[in-house]
């Protein structure tokens, strides 16, 4: 299998590997953009993002650490999560297919 290209790195916050389409949600009023199985990409989460989180296969955030809201919620729900990538919302594009390796904290292009 060819080595996949790493496009982003962050802090692994909840383990697992998932492949899916990116949905960038900067404001919870855009939660309806999320389809079941999408990958939620956002700056940081708060309780208003819960409807989007519940549909997400994985979460990637720009900021936060192992005890941030996204990290805690994703561990509780068992969703792979990479936090603190600093620029996920700028680098990734809506509907882009990616692989999130939340065990290593790496995001690959498909």
């Amino acid at each position, binding site marked *: 299998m060819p080595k996949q290209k790493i496009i982003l790195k962050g802090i*692994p916050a909840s*383990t697992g590997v998932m492949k899916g389409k990116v949905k960038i949600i900067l404001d919870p009023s855009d939660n309806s953009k999320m389809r079941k199985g999408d990958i939620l990409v956002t700056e940081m989460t708060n*309780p208003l993002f819960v409807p989007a989180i519940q549909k997400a296969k994985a979460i990637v955030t720009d900021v936060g*650490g*192992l005890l941030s809201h996204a990290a805690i919620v994703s*561990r509780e729900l*068992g969703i792979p999560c990479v936090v603190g990538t600093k620029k996920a919302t700028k680098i990734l594009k809506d509907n882009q297919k990616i692989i999130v390796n939340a065990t290593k904290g790496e995001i690959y292009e498909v």
Partner: protein
Amino acid sequence: MRYKTILEKIGISDEVVKKWKKKGLKITYPTEKNPHYLKSADGEAFVENADKFVPPLTKQETKLYIKHPEKFKEDFLKNVRFFKKFCNFVYKKQKRTEGLKRKDKIVALLSLIYLFQRAMDYHYYHWDRYLVYEDYPQTPVGYWWKKIKDLYTKVTRKKASKKNPFEGFLKLVARDKEILKEFREKLSKNDFLILKKALQAIKIFEDAQQKEIEMLMDYERKIDVLKGTGFPMLDKFWKEIKRHPEFTRKEGRAKIKTIMRLHPIIGARRLLLAPALKCFDKEIFSQFQKEIKRWVKR
């Protein structure tokens, strides 16, 4: 008749000030750098991580909260409720500045923004930032986090770090049943008890964090208290300054314009430090100082 301060004109009497101070509001002036602030691991100063202008927990508080994480949660959430009330109070009063003369309006808004910022500093940095300090063993969260890390290393001979926490470590923090079973078998009875205590402590800190975020959310307006109160006040202030540049000194206008363009969190901090405050008209600066001095604890 006694001279009425500008904030008194919008209903903030000495009695009101006293009431807030009695409830525990801590306002200091001027905003000064704390030489012993903790930097974030990557050296960046972000709102969640570090700031040079904030009062950290005292030694006694740290000791108490390491021993009793539930006490931290209790005190922290008490402060969350208080902070939210104060932000809403300041925000409501800001609406009354519409009836003031132009210059008074600038003083009132600047003063209210300062009060908001100091209350926020006290909440976020004295309390909230400690919830993400897992990498600082001298803090309550860091102390218990290190215990988990050490016991993880004891069993697996791997060193978990922020950049490489390892799958097993994250599962341990998530209190995964399989991992816990494995650790129970591999650790001594005493070490396993310490691990359980550490995981419980981290859970208390996590719960405090989640509860805080829920409490500070205005679900009706779908916005958190910071964005719902502080940001609009700052926005209103900048609009006034754009409309009336004559209230800033000529030599300070370029500086103020630069600050205006910054992110509101960074912009508000810069605006409220002495070099920026001195860019305002002398009378505005002096009135602002008078207002704030009423709030400073003696």
